[in-house]
């Protein structure tokens, strides 16, 4: 099977080959329990993702952007972070949120139309608001990392974004600022081959990881469907940042198996064959195979995870559908810390009526 087109060019680092055989050193610093956790999160995440698509079809969510195929990129990177580190996500990082301990029901308030931004507590979870204006969160991450640096707390920040985001001015300005100030920041790009209907080759003529050199810090290209490879690459970047050596740009080559979102019909612009081909590089199958061969997992364990994932997905569903519309007052309640008088009069006009 051919790898997706956008994986061409500079070879990505990897530890596990697509068939699950180790081609690098799998001793990345994850013990057997961690390894099983990684697998478990990936299974859980995929199951929840599929549940969300079903929920959307049933009218329980508004538009939903699935992440199937990107589980290794998300879980592998998330597991490389410490509890004090802070994440600024884009809008497709539900798996990261899960691994981070964000309540998925709260997270999904976003896609239910219940609330905008960060319905969960971004400070407590150290997981920033979901961010739709492409690449804007990368500047927030740079600012947060600057704050960490000024506070000297030794924590680091990670910004997640897609291949398409690298075309925005905000990506550039934030990355350059990070370089100038050697910020404790990891720029984690999930290059999933597509930005809605636009393939990566029409997004940029260069390789994304190579951008870093122009900003004066390292870039790496990793096989984003190899959870161990992703973990190792992220871990190296995190350690670097924590040691005060500045930012790293990681380009994780992965693939968006589903449509851009439930509102998108990918058959308009993408061959079914491409998707079928990409399935041969499935991150869960790859890691599962290695876990078995390494003796860390067996059929029973996988069945347990699958059952747990079903249960988890149904619990999330139950929590979500129980969620009615919020009180009308919420449209006004947090706009200002000190709401001005004319604003309060309008609130009165709106809610009194």
């Amino acid at each position, binding site marked *: 099977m051919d790898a997706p087109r956008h994986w061409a060019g500079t070879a990505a680092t990897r530890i596990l080959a697509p068939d699950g055989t180790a081609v690098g050193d799998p001793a990345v610093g994850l013990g057997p329990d961690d390894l099983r956790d990684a697998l478990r999160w990936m299974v859980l995440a995929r199951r929840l993702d599929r549940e969300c698509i079903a929920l959307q079809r049933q009218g329980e969510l508004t538009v939903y952007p699935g992440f199937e195929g990107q589980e290794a990129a998300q879980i592998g990177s998330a597991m490389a972070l410490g509890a004090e580190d802070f994440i600024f996500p884009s809008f497709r990082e539900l798996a990261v949120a899960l691994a981070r301990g964000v309540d998925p029901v709260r997270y999904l308030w976003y*896609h239910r139309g219940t609330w905008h931004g960060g319905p969960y507590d971004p400070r407590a979870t150290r997981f920033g608001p979901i961010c739709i204006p492409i690449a804007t969160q990368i500047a927030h991450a740079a600012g947060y990392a600057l704050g960490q640096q000024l506070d000297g707390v030794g924590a680091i920040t990670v910004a997640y974004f897609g291949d398409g985001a690298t075309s925005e001015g905000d990506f550039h300005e934030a990355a350059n600022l990070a370089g100038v100030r050697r910020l404790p920041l990891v720029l984690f790009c999930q290059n999933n081959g597509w930005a809605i*209907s636009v393939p990566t080759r029409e997004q940029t003529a260069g390789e994304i990881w190579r951008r870093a050199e122009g900003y004066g810090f390292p870039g790496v290209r990793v096989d984003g469907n190899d959870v161990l490879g992703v973990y190792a690459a992220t871990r190296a970047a995190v350690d670097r940042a924590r040691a005060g050596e500045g930012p790293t740009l990681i380009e994780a080559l992965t693939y968006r198996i589903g449509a851009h979102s439930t509102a998108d019909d990918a058959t308009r612009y993408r061959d079914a064959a491409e998707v079928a081909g990409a399935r041969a590089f499935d991150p869960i199958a790859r890691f599962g195979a290695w876990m078995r061969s390494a003796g860390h997992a067996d059929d029973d364990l996988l069945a347990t995870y699958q059952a747990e994932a079903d249960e988890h997905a149904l619990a999330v569903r139950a929590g979500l559908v129980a969620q009615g519309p919020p009180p009308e007052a919420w449209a006004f309640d947090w*706009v200002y810390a000190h709401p001005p008088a004319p604003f309060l009069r309008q609130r009165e006009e709106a809610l009194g009526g």
Partner: protein
Amino acid sequence: MAEWTMSAALNRALWDALIDDQRVLVFGEDVGVSGGVFRVTDGLQAEFGDRRVFDTPISEAAIVGAAVGLCFAGWRPVVEMQFDAFSYPALEQVIDHVAKMRMRTRGRVDLPITIRIAAFGGIKGKEHHGESPETYYVHTAGLKVVVPSSPLDAYRLLRHAVADADPVVVLEPKARYWGKEAGELATEGPGIGAGRVLRTGDDVTVVAYGTMVARALDAATVLGERGVGARVVDLRSLSPLDEDLLARCARETGRVVVVHEAPRTLGMGAEVAARVMELAFDSLAAPVARVTGWDAPYPPASLEDGYLPSVDRIVDAAMATVAY
């Protein structure tokens, strides 16, 4: 008689413009093979080739900036900003260059740029997908700004916009993309700068644009049942405003209600109110009433209905104005 959705009418407008003028280009994010999130550019690339209809990287500032450069080379760019809020990264280019370049070059370079923006709320979309950005554009001198409310008028306004030698921002009310209207598409009829009266009435004038026009008409029906004759004006052209029409309606009805989705403060209602006061103060029997979105960020889908002007709110405001 053919029936058109606004999406199809806009698509046809681009199609016809691409045929009529070989210098017309259509580009933006996902406008090519995909045909646009709302299908407005559907089939154009297949028909006109990827030389004239093409996708760009996700770089709104460069999209608009490139359009400016293309004008120097004698092209006529039609660019799409996928959603209202995603036009903001291009505001510097719009304000500093699109709006000013003709003046800056002392008329040597025309800027026949059309900036199409899927705008306004009402589709229970996610944040940044329901904004009303018109104030940012209308306040910016040097631009023209139009908002169609129906398929046939969308065709007409977009054709006029593309043909105009000046830059025109076309705010397409996304909640109306799938609304239908029967009739023949034509460029004849009111152009940029003209409003139109969609319903006659002598007691109060309700001024609206875009998605709110249908609500204004519904409100007029309710008002009619209550014995109040409401005239409904579809503004269509936010910049320039149809001052004559506004003045005439204000003089004839003495009472004006203006409706929009944008936050009240410095929303179009402020300008309509100020202009009506300047043009027809002596005829005004009541203050111009504004029925608008609140001065708060556009809310989540679940709270959208409480934010957007409802038929009830329009009716109440009109009744209060009439009773003033």
